[in-house]
């Protein structure tokens, strides 16, 4: 490979490596080094390309050539595919798409919502790769016409169909990139962020769509487009259409939202927006078959392509027809999940004063959470709360619900004081549930509350909240949560909803210190004090130092003034 080819191949990596070095490494020198290497390669390329020499012809008496042996069926497209794979790999458009994958891998740091939700984003995340693959393949397919070489190539025995099939074979390149991207992202996120929730067929399905079907479809679409529309803007027009379709379904997913290529199959949660896994896979496989058929179809002569086209159209039509909004029973059931209707919700008592409710699909998740919440519930003095506290799952947004379900939910949803966690298998639930339950016990509002409602600096109830929230945690873990430093814990900035749009609960550093002193004093001394005067300690007028005094711990003094940071988004 010549220097200029190497330089060209490495060029699209300059930006991703620069961003990588800045955002990940926190330094510019790797980017500077890489840029210097790239400049060096370009200089070498220019030197090697200077002043073309005019080499002499060899003696015409060179050994006479011979004809190629008769090729085996399919061997020509396979041999051509090697060229097309090389051309796709060297395409700046394709490299930019692969670069986007790297950038997205870095950008998706909020992959903390569980395997299902994370996998559901994968089809969307490979869209830059697939979109730019369409452009690259289209340019490769129209290369001969663009370069004026069509006539020369047409006079060769290999047919245009052979060349199209070779272009289709080049799908192995984006598929490889897609597989590496998807597997790397999931495994990397799983290891780093401790994703949880089940790894089941839905995760595999979304990963397969993102890594295999969408890249394959992108190549086929590029071939089909290049065959019929050679003008350079054609793929961009198609990309615009794809974007518009996805935007349409994104805003209004309804029952067919999952038919769009980029709409997450289960943005809210797999429980509520449930495309049938097999149906969704079949839909994308049908789309790929359709565009492959369009790419190779050559009229009545191509019988297999005709069958593939007709079959895929029939399958796609069947799926569209069957993907109607859910029936009445399903609507009622899904709405019942969201509104916690008794018929669809199972509750379990953690103590006589605390219960945890969850819809049937969340039974396992609720069981897991119950283990975490039990110490918190037990730390609330018996009979302290006037009404039993109910913790349940809720839909923080309803716009991603199917249309009929959303309307049913909006019609029947009642605003109540139950605390809870948003639907989804989020790894933040364990901490959030602790704080939600503790906040409910001491009457500190969470979520969308009026300004200043979450300011508890200097208030004893804020300290009680923290003490309850860390109940049962190992001492070091509890102290870590109560660190005044920015730790990424729910107490960061005193915000117990670090990842949710709402007004946060905010403490002063002195309150965190007061909670540490309660921990030092021990539950044996703190619990009786709390039980004896619960109403006093949850009164906003009671100061932090009063509680410390009652427990026999030294005071922390006047709290810092805290400025309400308002809603987090």
């Amino acid at each position, binding site marked *: 490979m010549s220097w200029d080819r190497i330089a060209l191949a490495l060029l699209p990596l300059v930006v991703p490596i620069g961003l990588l070095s800045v955002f990940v490494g926190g330094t510019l020198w790797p980017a500077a080094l890489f840029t210097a290497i790239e400049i060096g390669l370009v200089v070498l390329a220019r030197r090697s390309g200077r002043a073309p020499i005019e080499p002499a012809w060899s003696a015409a008496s060179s050994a006479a050539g011979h004809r190629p042996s008769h090729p085996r069926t399919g061997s020509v497209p396979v041999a051509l595919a090697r060229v097309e794979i090389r051309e796709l790999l060297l395409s700046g458009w394709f490299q930019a798409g692969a670069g986007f994958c790297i950038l997205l891998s870095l950008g998706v740091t909020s992959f903390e919502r569980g395997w299902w939700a994370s996998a559901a984003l994968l089809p969307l995340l490979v869209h830059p790769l697939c979109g730019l693959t369409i452009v690259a393949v289209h340019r490769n397919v129209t290369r001969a016409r663009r*370069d004026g070489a069509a006539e020369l*190539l047409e006079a060769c*025995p290999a047919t245009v169909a052979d060349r199209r099939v070779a272009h289709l074979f080049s799908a192995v390149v984006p598929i490889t990139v897609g597989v590496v991207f998807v597997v790397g992202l999931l495994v990397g996120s799983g290891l780093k962020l401790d994703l949880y929730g089940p790894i089941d067929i839905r995760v595999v399905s979304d990963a397969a769509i993102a890594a295999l079907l969408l890249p394959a479809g992108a190549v086929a679409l590029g071939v089909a487009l290049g065959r019929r529309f050679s003008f350079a803007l054609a793929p961009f027009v198609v990309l615009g259409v794809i974007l518009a379709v996805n935007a349409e379904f994104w805003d209004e997913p309804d029952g067919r939202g999952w038919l769009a290529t980029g709409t997450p199959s289960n943005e809210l949660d797999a429980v509520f927006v449930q495309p049938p896994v097999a149906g969704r896979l079949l839909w994308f496989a049908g789309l790929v078959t359709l565009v492959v058929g369009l790419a190779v179809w050559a009229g009545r002569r191509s019988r297999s392509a005709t069958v593939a086209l007709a079959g895929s159209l029939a399958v796609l039509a069947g799926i569209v027809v069957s993907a109607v909004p859910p029936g009445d029973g399903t609507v009622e059931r899904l709405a019942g999940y969201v509104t916690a209707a008794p018929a669809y919700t199972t509750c379990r008592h953690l103590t006589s004063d605390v219960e945890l409710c969850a819809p049937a699909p969340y039974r396992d998740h609720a069981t897991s959470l119950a283990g975490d919440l039990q110490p918190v519930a037990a730390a609330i003095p018996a009979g302290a709360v006037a009404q039993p506290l109910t913790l349940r799952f809720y839909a923080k947004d309803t716009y991603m619900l199917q249309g009929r379900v959303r309307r049913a939910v909006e019609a029947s949803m009642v605003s109540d004081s139950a605390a809870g966690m948003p639907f989804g298998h989020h790894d933040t639930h364990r901490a959030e549930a602790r704080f939600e339950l503790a906040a409910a016990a001491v009457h500190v509002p969470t979520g969308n509350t009026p300004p200043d409602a979450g300011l508890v600096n200097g208030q004893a109830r804020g300290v009680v909240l923290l003490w309850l929230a860390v109940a049962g945690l190992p001492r070091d873990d509890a102290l870590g949560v109560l660190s005044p430093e920015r730790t990424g814990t729910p107490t960061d900035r005193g915000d117990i909803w670090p990842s949710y749009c709402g007004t946060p609960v905010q403490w002063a550093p002195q309150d965190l210190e007061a909670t540490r002193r309660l921990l030092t004093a021990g539950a044996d001394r703190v619990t009786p004090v709390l039980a004896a005067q619960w109403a006093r300690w949850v009164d906003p007028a009671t100061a932090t130092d009063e509680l410390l005094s009652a427990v026999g711990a030294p005071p922390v003094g006047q709290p810092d003034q805290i400025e309400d940071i308002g809603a987090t988004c």
Partner: protein
Amino acid sequence: MSADIAVRELSRRFGAVVAVDGIDLDLGAGVTGLLGPNGAGKSTLLRMLATVAAPDRGSIRVFGHDPSSPAGRLAIRRRLGYLPQEPGFHGHFTCFQFVDYVAILKEWTRRRERHDEVRRVLSLVGLADVSNRRISRLSGGMKQRLAIAQTFLGAPDLLVLDEPTAGLDPEHRLRFRELLGSAALRSTVLLSTHQTDDVAALCNRVVVLLEGRIRFDGPPAELAARAAGCVWLAADRDPAADLGWVGGDGRWRNIGEPPPGAVAVEPTIEDGYLVVAGAAHTLTEAS
């Protein structure tokens, strides 16, 4: 013995323009030169013989195969080397990659054999040393040689070359003649050119095409003979001449109807072509 190429009543129109008008032609072994002014239909005829364009009317048989059927086209293309008038290249390919790509299209699927063949044809045209250079970095003459190289892949039985020496300097033209002369020993060659000296040097037969029709078909010497008695030298441009120019010796070479007493000289193929094509008369009228 039947001809390698048999053309009957071949016609092709482009809108109102008749590019090829009812041509009958039989071609056999050896080199046939196609002469004619721009727009005479040479390239259209070659494109139809190379199976990249279809006639509106008439028939073509190449080695007995009919290019109007897919099987016939395939059979012809397997024995064809074609150089278009303006061959395009993928500029970012290297010389080797481009010829290798064409070789695959010519069904060289075994990598080692194919690479040997690519190296052979690049060597034939003297591009072996620059086989890894990108085509966009080649000079015009080198690009033309690269185009010539691909036509020789697989030692084709039929070479259809449209202005193969365009862009070649004199030395490379001579080298090309040597190469083509060797190829003609085993192939049927049809080349279109404006270089009458190439025709004189290479062709055993010449066809003059004018306005889509064949105006002359015969040996080069016979074409030259068409101007016999129509070319004379004089100290000045003869007013009776249709065309005249000053030669290197300072004397005027006049073509036309010689005046009484003019001393006729030996005509060349170029003279014969001008007489057959009537170009001399046309040029004179234009001036």
